[in-house]
């Protein structure tokens, strides 16, 4: 189960040459984060300004991340990226540091998303990407992806996160995404299990292509807005296209949080503040091809970028869009077990 293996690949994204003496004197700030989720220029700027280097540790599975935060090694980390649906539970369970109230809340797209334990970093839409050069017709809905037409068989890459899997299945089935109804869950599991025979793998498409840049196996996959642009850049060709699925828009928001056991809360807070600056956020947003949560930051972005509908939603879309819902521990466990059972089924069939 590749996707569950946490990438403890430590990258010395250590600050730039400037202030080398200063940097060498300071301990690096340890950040637990998705791979390639931070603009190196921004990091350089931070280190130049503060003299504090940043050391990133990557994860590619949210439940694994939660186990890290709940485990003994959590104290190693200072800053962590947590998705909005988990940030409050993890905070309430005492694994995250409570943050001072953010004065920018009124100028945010999703003011409540990160709650009192997080500050929004980037947001985007959860949708579908496909290979323009491979498929006969665009994959426009979750239903088309989960009950795929013949040409897609063996070329579907599913995103093996419990929330993402069930959200896709619920939307395809027409169920509310936050449902905990047993029948709904069973139907969703059945749909996913049926689909598994068409699935190439359950890795995050971006991670898979980063590892296998030459691969042409996957033609359609669930993905986050911005992934299409990143993948085209990665593979150096304009073949990936992002689609907002017909059944409805689901929005993700990733939040900066401070690990409860961090010994450097001040530096961590300073880092989060730096990242939340409008000009930094605007820069990060463009670099990551994801939306900035700060409306003021958007204003200083490239007008083309501002108007890119794969990044920012229209007013109407914003009204219809839903965030990934939050669940209780038991419900999270149920969803996790559905995912695990699916992967086990996939591996044995």
């Amino acid at each position, binding site marked *: 189960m590749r996707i569950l293996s946490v990438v403890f690949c430590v990258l010395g994204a250590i600050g730039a040459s400037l202030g080398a003496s200063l940097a060498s004197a300071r301990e690096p700030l340890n950040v637990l984060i998705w791979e390639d989720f931070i603009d190196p220029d921004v990091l350089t700027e931070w280190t130049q300004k503060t003299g504090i280097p940043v050391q990133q540790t990557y994860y590619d599975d949210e*439940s694994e991340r*939660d*186990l890290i935060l*709940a*485990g003994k090694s959590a104290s190693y980390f200072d800053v962590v990226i947590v998705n909005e649906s988990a940030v409050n*539970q*993890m905070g*309430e*369970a005492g694994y995250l540091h409570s943050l001072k109230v953010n004065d920018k809340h009124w100028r945010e797209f999703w003011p409540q998303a990160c709650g009192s334990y997080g500050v929004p970093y980037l947001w985007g839409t959860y949708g579908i990407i496909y290979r323009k050069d491979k498929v006969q017709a665009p994959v426009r809905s979750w239903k088309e992806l989960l009950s795929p037409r013949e040409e897609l068989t063996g070329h579907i890459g599913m995103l093996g996160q419990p929330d993402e899997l069930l959200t896709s299945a619920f939307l395809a089935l027409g169920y509310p995404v936050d449902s905990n109804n*047993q029948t709904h*869950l*069973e139907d969703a*599991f059945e749909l996913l*299990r049926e689909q598994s025979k068409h699935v190439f793998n359950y890795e995050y498409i971006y991670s898979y292509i980063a590892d296998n840049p030459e691969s042409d196996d996957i033609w359609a996959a669930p993905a986050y807005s911005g992934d299409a642009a990143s993948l085209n850049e990665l593979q150096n060709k304009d073949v990936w296209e992002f689609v907002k699925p017909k059944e409805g828009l689901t929005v993700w928001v990733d939040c900066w949080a401070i690990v409860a056991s961090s010994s450097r809360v001040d530096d961590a807070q300073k880092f989060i503040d730096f990242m939340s600056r409008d000009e930094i956020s605007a820069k990060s947003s463009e670099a990551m091809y994801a939306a900035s949560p700060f409306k003021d930051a958007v204003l200083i972005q490239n007008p083309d970028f501002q108007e890119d509908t794969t990044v920012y939603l229209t007013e109407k879309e914003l009204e219809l869009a839903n965030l990934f819902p939050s669940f*209780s*521990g*038991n419900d*999270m*466990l*149920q969803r*996790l*077990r*559905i995912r*695990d*059972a*699916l992967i*086990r*089924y996939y591996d*044995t069939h």
Partner: protein
Amino acid sequence: MTLTKRLVLLVLPILLVGVFVAAAGMYQVQSDTLTEVEQTKLDLKLQHAKAQFEQDASVAANVASLLLDGETLPALTRSAGKDVEEYLVTQKLDRLIDDVLSDGHTRLLVTVIDDLGNPIYHHERSDNPFSETPKFVLNFARSSILKRTQTSSKLMFINSFKHAYVHGRVLDASTFLKPFRVGSDNNIVVVVTSYTEAFDRDLRTLQETYGVTPKLINRLPSFKAPDEAMTRSIEILPNFYLELELTDAYLRHSRTSLVDWLIAVSLIFGVTVAAVLLYLIRRYIIRPIEILDDQLDLVTSAQQNNIQRPVGTDELSRLGIKFYDLYDQLNTNLNESRNLAITDSLTKLPNRTRFQEFAKRAIVRAWNRKTYVSLIYIDLDNFKFVNDRLGHEAGDELLKFAANAFESLLQSEKYRQQGTLVSRLAGDEFAIVLAHDDLKDRENLAADLVGLFDGGFKTDRYLTPVSASVGVASYPEDGEDLRELIANADMAMYHAKRSGKSRFSTYSHSIAGDARRVKLIEDALKFVNCDDEFSLVFMPFVDQAGEIKGLEVLLRWYSAELGHITPDEFVPIAEQTGTYSKIDDWVFRNAFDHISKLCTFLGDDIVVAINISAAELGQADFASKLIRLKEEYNVSDGAVELEITETFGYFAVEQVLVVLRGLRDAGFGISIDDFGIGYTPLLQMIDYPVDKVKFDKELVQRLTNDQYRQLLEPTVELCHLQSIKVTAEGVEDLDKLSVLRHAGCDYFQGYSIAQPMSLVELREWHERYLPLKQ
């Protein structure tokens, strides 16, 4: 029956019986051990099932041990009911269990139950995310506490082919160690349930294979296991036995399988061995015999001269070689004898048989092509002379050379293109078959053949005075079939011979007529009554003074059917047919009888000259017979003169000379008739014991010509010098008489003097002559 069929009938039954007996023996042995084998097989399967069971069971025990070790279990109990923490701890436990079991796909349940019997953790490692704690697990946990056993295991029957191994441990809820007293408060039970899927699969396989459901029996040690050989048993847990009965039905079935297998194997084996055996025998034994047989067929149908000589040393090759040699020898002998049969051994020319074969075929061809076939008969003239005078060796040499000459002629440019065959028929007779398109060819060839003998015939050692008489008859002109052609060619050849030899005659109607007349004469001679039909005439001859000195006796034949027949005509026929001695006898007797009558009016000194054939001199008893007759008729010495025609060669033979001397001594006079036209040189002739020569009419004619007249006198003188009197024949006029008289001839005979006359006429003539002479 062919060898192959016989082979099949002999080998196949024996082979099949052998294979059947072997198979039956094998079945006997196999079926005895079959039961044993089946028992062992079943034991192994039970063993395998047990191993599967133990594997599943050990997984359960290991997972239980794992949970007792480390902090997970305490964390779990502490976080129970604390929403997110419980989620995280549970997730961690799931991961832990998954990691431990990462390789296998055992369906495993891990349940932690508090002392009230409520599950505080339940995880099913399967592809069912909605699993709930089964009742039997809860019951097991409760009973574990009630039984106060810290560790317990149980085989759980879920349904007929679904079992589970349940392993439970009772722990103190605070220390997570072995409780001080099991069954007291504050206990938790960790239950690991392993679904023995592999084991269940084995059980199902066992049932499918053996047709009976395997039994799992809990039997206390006090109970003795039933001692049934047919029920095999294995202990999979203490006091738990897996048992299966080896039924008769199953054994019967496997025995049937054995029989089927044996039959199949025997059949395949039998057929294969038979096929291979038949093939090998056919290929290496029968085939060579067939080849030999085919070869013999080719030989007997004459498509081949002999069989191909086999190479090799095996019996068949040796047989073939022996046959080859035998046939070769037979063939050689056959060819030799055939050659002998159709070849003349002396000249190596084809013989009469071959001649007839060839001629027949040539006639058939000529009939088809509308062409000619001529038969050319060759008879060597005077061959007898060569044989008699020079010996048989010379005769043989002559025949060989003549044969060569004929062959060479036919091989020459002129005749090579034509279909010819020369053969020796017999003695000095040869025949040539000539196939030709132009009728004139036969005359050319015949002329050439005669020409070969111009001036005599030369061999290595001799120049012989032989010539050839050739007769030709052609198909279709002169005969329709071979028999007729042969007869006609022969007839033509005789005609040539009679016509004077050294010439050829082609068959014609006149020849046929002549031949017919010859035949009539022959027949008439056979039955002639001499006294009725023969008569004698007398031709006087006179001396210089015109005195009648003697009479040449001539024979006349008047046949009622044939009329007058001259001696020239019938004498040669009589000589050939052997009737001449009868005629001779009659002539001598009558002539001798006439002597006394003649003496009465011609005087006692009258001489009677009688012609004899030179051929008769060769007969041994001729002389003695004549002498006896002379005595019988009391003929005085010198009264009879024998005139011998100087036919070719006979005087040269010593035997003839002896006879002549004998006759002369007996009182016969000897004269040579027709002297001058023969072959014998004059000088040689006068050495012979003769008293008189009669100059032939032609010699007389020639010597009385002006051209040769001067030779006349010396010739007469020469005879006189040898004391030989000379008679001139053919004196036709008085001038000649005068010339001859002056030349010194002693006697004269001819029409100018007198014709041949009967006795009566002679008397009348004599009456007239006497005064005339006066």
